[in-house]
């Protein structure tokens, strides 16, 4: 790790320092690394789903087609894990700037961890066990009941 120790005009002095390898350090590194991954995953997802395709004509059938492939399922699974952890850790960083009571912070952190795990497990099961045929059948049944 490098750090800047003096910033005289137009001159930056850099010295190597040893950083403690604690949990905050890994959380910090994770935010950078997952951020780079999300530049591809999340921006790609936005461009593919909201520009190349449009949510204006998004239906269950579109999802049934897309999640028929393990490639898309894997893409969305990666996006899920990185985005949820990056986002909730970001929220934790924001809250820690404004809430200074250690007991409150501890409970907020516990809540965010449990919430992240539940979200990933629930949505992960949803993606992994999504069945395109079942979705098409559900759309068919809806078309009947909506009278289309």
């Amino acid at each position: 790790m490098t750090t800047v120790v003096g910033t005289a005009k137009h001159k930056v002095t850099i010295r190597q320092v040893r950083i403690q390898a604690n949990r905050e350090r890994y959380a910090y590194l994770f935010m950078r690394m997952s951020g780079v991954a999300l530049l591809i995953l999340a921006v790609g997802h936005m461009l593919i789903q909201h520009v190349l395709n449009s949510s204006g004509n998004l239906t269950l059938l579109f999802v049934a087609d897309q999640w028929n492939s393990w490639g898309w399922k894997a893409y969305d699974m990666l996006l899920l894990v990185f985005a949820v952890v990056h986002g909730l850790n970001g929220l934790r960083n924001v809250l820690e700037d404004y809430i200074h009571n250690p007991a409150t912070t501890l409970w907020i952190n516990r809540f965010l961890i449990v919430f992240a795990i539940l979200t990933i497990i629930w949505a992960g099961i949803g993606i992994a066990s999504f069945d395109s045929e079942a979705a098409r059948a559900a759309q068919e049944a809806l078309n009947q009941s909506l009278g289309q």
Partner: protein
Amino acid sequence: MSSLLLTVRESMRYRGRSGHYSWVAHRISGLAILFFLVMHVWDTANAHFYPPLYAWSLELFKFPLFALGEIGLMAAVLYHAFNGIRITLLDFKPEWWKHQAKSATISWGLFFLIFTPIGLYMVIELISRCNELAAEGATCWTIPSLASYLR
């Protein structure tokens, strides 16, 4: 409550020279994305767990106010991505800190350059969809009835 207001007001006050607007925009866009992400993930899981409810929410999200929110989401994701890359680069390259102010401007420039055409395209898409529906005698300003989907 007054201390919360104080915090918000003082956080927003520009202190200059350190990319303070970038910091505020990064924070707000991040929180906005997270708010949407959580809804989106739990909603999308219904594609497996409860398809009729998911189909209803897909229709609901076509309502123009949600479509505008979608454009805002695009802006938030793009800015957060570009500014995040800037932060990451500067974190690992302290010798670039002398270009800090310039780098903040570059990430704003990149954001406007890329978001402007995409945002315009999304607005045009929304308007043309509403026009098509209007031509069919329908309207894009309808909220689908949940009861009819869950029947």
